[in-house]
Structure formats: C-alpha cells, structure tokens
C-alpha cells in the first residue's frame, strides 16, 4: 500500500521540523585542500518549488555521480551547500553573502532571473562565474561587457528565434511564414516582456503578423486573453508563461477550442509541472527545450545505478528522474563540471579560483563527440563558449506532451545567432556605458587571477 509510505514521511518531516525548532547552533565551513565548492541558492518551497527541486536535484545528482564514480574531478572533490531562497531575491542575496567566503567556489547557479541580476555586480567584484543556464539577461551573452555571467546554452533572444524557426519548419519553411499570424501570450512581468521587440523584429523579417498579449501575474484567469486569441485566429500561439499561468493557458485554450499542438511553450513553460495540472488538455502541446527529457541516456542510467543505487539520490520522488528540470540540472552539472575540468587542464588538478573557473567556462567546448563520451548524446547537443560568446551556441529541440511524458518531435535546431548578435551587443554596450564599464578584450580575458578573492569587508 502506498499510503503506508506517507506516514513515515510525514513523521520524519515533522521530526526534522521539531528538531529545528528546539536546538541552537551555528555553522563553520569545513575546509579541505582539494575541493571545488558549489554554493546552491536552491528553492524547494514556495510557488516555484517544483522547478527548484528538479533542477537542484539533478545538479546535485550529477555532482554526486562524479564524486562516487570518479572520485571527483581529477581527484578534486566536488562539494556544495544549499540555501533556501524560495525564489526570492533578498533571500538569494543572503545566501550569497553567507556562502561567498567559502573557499574554492567554482560558480553560482541560481536558476532565478531576479537573484542572478542582484548578483551581477557582486560576483563581478568577486571574480566568480555566475551561470544562468537557459535564462538570464540576454545581453550578458556579450563577454566583453559581462566577463563573469554565462547564460549558457540559450538566452531569451535565441529562444525566440528558435521558436520562430520551428514554427517556420512546421508551416513548410521560413518563407511560408509570410502572411501567417502568431500570437505571443506572455507573462505580465519584465521576464515576459523581454522578447517583445525580438518577435516584432522577426515578424518584420519573415512577414508574419504577431500579436502579443499580456497575462497579468499570476495568470490563474485567462478567459479574456483566449477569447481574444480565438477571435484573432492565429496559426500558432507562443506561450511565454510562468508557473500557474502555463496549465491555465493550456486549459483555457481547450475551452475556447484552440488546438494544443499549435501552442508552443518557451523554456519556462516546458516542464511536467506546466502540463500535468492541465490534464488531458495538454495532450499535443509542444515546448522548446535545450535538453531532452527521459532517463534513457547513459549518464542518467549511471546516476540511477550509482547515485540512487547508493541511496544518495536527491529526488524524493524517483518518478521525476529524467523530468525536464531534473535533466536540466544534470546538463547544468555537466557544463559546470566540464568547465572545471577544462580549467584544471590549464591551471592544475587542484582547487581553482573563481577566475580560473571563469577561464574554464570561456573555453568550454563540448562537441557532439565529447557530449557522447559524457553519456549525454541526444540529451543535449553541444556547446561552444568563448570569451565573448557566453551563450555558447546552444541548440534546441522541441518536445511534445503525450499525456504522460515528453517526446522529442524535432531535430536539433539552431537559432539565428548572426541576426541577434548586433542587438545583443548594442544592449550590452549601452549597459557598459551606463555603468562606465570598459570593454574587455580577448587578451584581457586570458589574464586570470589565481588567488581567490574573498570580499569579506
């Protein structure tokens, strides 16, 4: 009986909870010579807990795999500590302040736009990389202005371009987009609005019309938006949603009779948590992703065997192994670990400074062959980060929900990087001007601080 499991879980949670309340203590950082540390600003509660548990679970699972299977990276153990943020910026900052003086920090991985923004100044001072895989500030792609920020794999502009490329392919070629109509339904937040100009730009370029409709936060009512969409009769609806807005969009689409397979979700609308609450309405719904879901990939099999086999798996619910966020966490783990490895080849097999790891990220090149060697073939495509391209030309694929799981329904698609680069540079340069940041050159990028910078005062 499954109910039996419930009791000990609840009991344990309350026991923990009670234990917390009654005891008093403080923490000290235990140090060791050969450790590389990952401070994790995780979020396991609050409205976005589902994403947080998946992502940080995957990340930790991969770090565990490297430790258990390989004994770390070239003998350097990977360590981490978690601080709960609830996805709230000031708690993220608190965790940053708490953990920033820990020795051997490799990189920060907040998976939160707000927290990432609040850290840009701080980590730039500390010379420690800030990884915003799949999200983050688009113009931080420009490494000349943002030396320590890495929106790896996919920034919001590339996402936009890739979605349009996919829709183009569906209608029979980008040139067939002409005269078509696309509605973008976006979350009423700065995040949601960020890609408005890019959709306009692409609409102009390919000759389709685009109508962008806002859904106010949190988005649990979308009647009027979908009635407007029904009237507009678009070919496709792009869903740039967040949290509860996603399942509600899909359900409401069904209510107004809009077919789910003509809705394309972006990276924040592509997880199980976004479709499961929508039930059957979500069958056929398509979403972009940088990493395929499922647990058939060798690296996942090894995690199941080595990590979960040893009882060290991070996900409480094993059914979520191979879910979108879990796999994103694993891919994120691969990228971080490989960056450390790259840097170690240059600076030696020992604990590296943040700036050394930054160098590692700026030389992180994983071609499909290397990805396959890592056991991640088809999990993600490839990456090629350089000193001035911090996104690293990630490819995306599209997945379709069949009511139970996501299935990949497209090849790996490349966004139109060449088109976007000038816009990104313009924005980055404006930021540099406003903040009086001198543009970094390729030579400067090769200069590396080997001492860790601990700003304690």
């Amino acid at each position, binding site marked *: 009986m499954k109910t039996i499991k419930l009791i000990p879980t609840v009991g344990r*949670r309350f026991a*923990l*909870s009670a*234990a*917390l*309340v009654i*005891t*008093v*203590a*403080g*923490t000290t950082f235990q140090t060791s010579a050969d450790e590389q540390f990952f401070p994790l600003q*995780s979020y*396991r*509660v*609050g409205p976005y*807990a589902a994403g947080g*548990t998946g992502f940080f679970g995957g990340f930790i699972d991969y770090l565990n795999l490297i430790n258990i299977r390989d004994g770390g990276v070239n003998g350097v153990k990977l360590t981490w*500590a*978690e*601080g*709960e943020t*609830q996805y*709230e*910026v*000031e*708690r993220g*900052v*608190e965790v940053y*302040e*708490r953990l*920033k*003086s820990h020795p051997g920090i490799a990189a920060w991985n907040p998976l939160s*736009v*707000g927290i990432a*923004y*609040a850290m*840009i*100044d701080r980590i730039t001072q500390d010379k420690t990389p800030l990884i915003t895989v799949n999200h983050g*500030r*688009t*113009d931080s792609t420009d490494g000349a202005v943002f030396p320590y920020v890495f929106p790896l794999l996919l920034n919001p502009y590339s996402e936009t371009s890739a979605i349009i490329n996919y829709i183009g392919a569906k209608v029979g070629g980008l040139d067939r987009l002409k005269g078509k109509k696309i509605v973008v339904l976006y979350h*009423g*937040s*700065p*995040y949601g*609005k*960020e890609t408005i*100009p890019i959709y306009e730009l692409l609409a102009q370029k390919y000759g389709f019309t685009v109508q962008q409709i806002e859904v*106010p*936060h949190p988005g649990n009512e979308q009647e009027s938006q979908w009635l407007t969409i029904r009237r507009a009769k678009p070919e496709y609806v792009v869903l740039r949603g967040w949290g509860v807005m996603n399942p509600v969009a899909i359900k409401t689409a069904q209510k107004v009779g809009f077919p789910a397979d003509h809705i394309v979700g972006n990276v924040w609308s592509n997880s199980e948590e976004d479709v499961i609450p929508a039930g059957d309405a979500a069958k056929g719904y398509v979403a972009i992703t940088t990493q395929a879901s499922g647990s058939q990939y060798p690296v996942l099999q090894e995690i199941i065997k080595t990590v979960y086999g040893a009882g060290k798996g991070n996900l409480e619910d094993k059914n979520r192994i191979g879910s979108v966020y879990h796999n994103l966490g694993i891919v994120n783990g691969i990228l971080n670990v490989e960056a450390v490895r790259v840097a170690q080849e240059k600076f030696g097999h020992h604990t590296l400074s943040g700036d050394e790891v930054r160098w590692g990220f700026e030389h992180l090149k994983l071609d499909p062959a290397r990805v396959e060697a890592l056991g991640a073939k088809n999990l993600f495509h490839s990456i090629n980060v350089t000193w001035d391209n911090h996104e690293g030309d990630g490819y995306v694929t599209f997945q379709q929900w069949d009511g139970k799981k996501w299935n990949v329904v497209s090849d790996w698609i490349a966004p139109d990087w060449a088109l976007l680069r000038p816009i990104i540079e313009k*924005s980055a340069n404006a930021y540099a001007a*406003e*903040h009086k940041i001198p543009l970094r050159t390729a030579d400067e990028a090769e200069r590396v601080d080997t001492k860790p910078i601990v*700003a*304690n*005062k």
Partner: protein
Amino acid sequence: MMNPNASRFPAWLGPVALLAVAYGVLPIVGSSYLFEAILTPFLALSLAAVGLNLLTGYAGQVSLGSAAFMAVGAFAAYNFNLRLPGLPLLMSLVLAGFVATALGVVFGLPSLRLRGFYLAVSTLAAQFFVQWALTKFSWFSNNNPSGVIDAPSLSIFGLSFDSSIGRYLFALTIVVVLAWLAQRLVNTQTGHNFIAVRDNELAAKVIGVPVLRTKLLAFAISSFVIGVAGALWAFAYLRTVEPAGFNLDRSFQVVFIIIIGGLASIRGAFFGAALLVVFPLILSRLGSFLLGDHFDSGVLDMTQHIVLGALIIFFLIAEPDGLVALWDRLKKRLLPIPNNP
C-alpha cells in the same frame, strides 16, 4: 550582566549607547556578511515598518500596500538620479519620498470614506496597480528589457559609501534621522491626533481634531518614510531591483514586523524587523548544523513559515503590544526603577 543600580543612568544613555555601538563598534568587528545580509536589510525593513507603524499603529489605518510605496520610492529615486544628472543623492532620496507621499495621499483618499477591512482591501489596489505600472511602462526602468534597475554608486559630498560598511553606514544614518523624527512626531500634537483618530474617530472629530486632514497626513508621512525605505532597499541593500521584488508578500512582511514588534511603537519596528530578518537565518543555521548534508531546505522553510505564522497569532493573543512590551517588562525586572524612553 546588568547592573541592578542601572536606574541611575539617564534616559538618553540607552539610545546613545546603541548609536555608539552601531557607529563605533560594529563597523570594526562586523563581517561583510553581517552588513550585507543582516544589518542593511534590517535597517531598510525597520524604516518601512516605522512608516507603516505611523499609519497603522498610530493612526489606525490598516494598509496592505506598503510594498507598493517602497517600490515607488525605489523607482523614483532611481529615475531622479538617472534623469537629473548632478542631483545630489540625498536629494533624489528626498524627492523619491515625496513621490511616494503623493501616491500615498491618492491611495489614502478612500480612507476618508472607508474603514477597517474595506480600507485594507482598497490598499491592495495600490499594491497591484503600482506593480503593474512599473512593469508595464518600461520608462520607469529606463527601458531595460528586463525591467530591472541598478542602483547608482552611493556617494555624498564626494564621499563614497560603496563598500558594504559604507552602505550600512549610509542606511544607518538615514534610518536614524527618520526614526528620530518619527519619534518626535508621535509625541507632538499631530502624533496625538493620529492616536485620537485611531482610538475614537468620532470623539476626535467632536473635539476638533481635523480628522480628514489627519488621516491624509498619516498616509502622506507614512508613505514618505516607506518610500525612502524602498529606496534604501534598492540602493543600499539589493542594489538592483525589479518590481516583482515589491510584491504582496513584502507588504505582509512589513505588517508582520509591526505586529510582532509592537503596534504604535517606533522601537517596535526595529524589534520586529530584527526578529523577521534574523529568525529565518538562525533557523536555517540550526537546520544545517543539526542535519548536515541530509537536511532538506524545504522542510526548514516550511517550518519557518509555520513558526512565523504561529508567532503572529501568539503575539496577537498573548502580547498584543509586541516584543517591545516584552522587552520593557524584562527591563523592568532587571532595573528596579525603569528609565522610561
């Protein structure tokens, strides 16, 4: 620890000693973590709570929209600073306070006709409207595609306050000045008018307290203080803010601070803020200490949620005057003849 004859100490000694520690001792012994993660947010939240306490604690007008006025203060200060080059930083803060004041008066207008819950709910309109407007019109965030604003560097008269200690001292000074003014205010006729309107609006009206003006004044002053607190939150603490950072939860947080700290008490705002800032940290330290690697930050946070909620109920039931009352009672026990602050 405390001298039983301490009652001989004059009343000003406490505050002066506190200031001496805040200005003299902490900057020497404190770590960057202390300033950046504890003291600066503590100061900004305390100031917001001082503002709300003027309105809710003293004047009895419940507002659930404090975060909106914080947001207005933050974004206004940012824009003054950005768009009026050469304007001294302090001036931007003051002007930002005035913008918050103006908005406070507008959203205070319903208070002339509404009371209690109806007013409380109507302040939610401010909460949602401001957040919407700041997100909607990207002019407010200088057309930043992400709607996020970055704080300028803090310098006054050529003196830079950009280190973590500097930001702390900057916030400290502003908070001390405003809290001192607030403390004076509540002891003036105007402050008593606030209390009169709160305790018995009709009686206040009958004896000639200008009730409507008093209410609007309470909204105005309170919004000013909260607006400046928002600017501090943005400039001295986070240094980059997005409208979503000033959501309903933040408003509730400020309400909780004044309930726990003590309604109608300027000191209470500081007590409450201290508890709300420090309490989660203690709990999380506890958690990681006790449970080490196995510790689940989710459980911890849920616990925190529950304890916070329970604390609020507890205070409302057992100590409606908040931590301040507890503190005073404690002091009374330790010092036979209390020096009244």
